[in-house]
């Protein structure tokens, strides 16, 4: 795929992510947390979200690694994994699994503010990150993100 095509794909994906009700900011990042592109109704929110990327992905990977499952891997290499941690300072981190192997989501919930959802994209190179308005939007966002990411595979 050419760079131009990738940019168009990224823009289209971001537009679809932002169209999900409850999504306030969306970004595409590399599996190592490198910011690729993003869009937000509030630039400050996007900056705050990006600043959490690397640590959140690392925390999710570490939690998945602690689970007693036969195969845990990077967020993109999808064995099922799930974990819950109690609040640690300001945030609570939970890695939530999808039933479909190859799908895994990571969610970071803040005491003051909406949750942030990380969803690996097909291909294993990128992760979609969305910031939600409130915890009431989690179910819808997870469902719609699963549809979007499956459609892109």
């Amino acid at each position: 795929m050419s760079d131009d095509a990738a940019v168009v794909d990224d823009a289209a994906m971001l537009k679809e992510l932002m169209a999900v009700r409850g999504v306030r900011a969306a970004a595409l990042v590399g599996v190592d947390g490198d910011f690729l592109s993003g869009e937000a109704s509030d630039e400050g929110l996007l900056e705050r979200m990006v600043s959490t990327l690397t640590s959140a992905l690392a925390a999710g990977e570490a939690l998945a690694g602690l689970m007693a499952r036969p195969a845990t891997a990077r967020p993109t290499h999808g064995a099922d994994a799930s974990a819950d941690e109690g609040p640690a300072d300001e945030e609570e981190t939970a890695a939530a699994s999808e039933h479909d192997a190859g799908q895994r989501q990571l969610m970071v919930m803040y005491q003051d503010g909406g949750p942030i959802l990380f969803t690996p994209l097909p291909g294993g190179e990128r992760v979609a990150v969305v910031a939600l308005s409130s915890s009431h939007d989690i179910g819808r966002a997870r469902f719609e993100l699963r549809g979007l990411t499956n459609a892109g595979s």
Partner: protein
Amino acid sequence: MTDLEDILARAWTRVEGCRVVAIAGMDGLLIERHPNPSDEPAVYTGPQTEALEHLVADLTTLFGVTAGAMSTELGAPIAELIALGDNGGYYARRIDAELFCLLVAGAGAELENVRREAEALARELSVAFA
């Protein structure tokens, strides 16, 4: 309006006395509902978001409970849960292993109609999101 909202809205209009129709995950999370109190808060009469989320969580538990001995004895998974009271009732129908739909109806709703429309809704949702 997304496809999902559209499907729920159509089902809601077909069931007289329906206060809210929703789709939820078997993980206990509400996915979508119609009507939504944020759309027209002044005229909305259904359960508030927190209450509906609580209902969904309880129904998920009930689906889990009925998936055990009750389903084994029956020879098939329990697909419908019905809870009725003097002021109305709750009707939940399993869509697949991961999803179920829920209708909250007032006292004036006819149960057979609720069941029929919920079955049609479950079928439509399973096709739309296969």
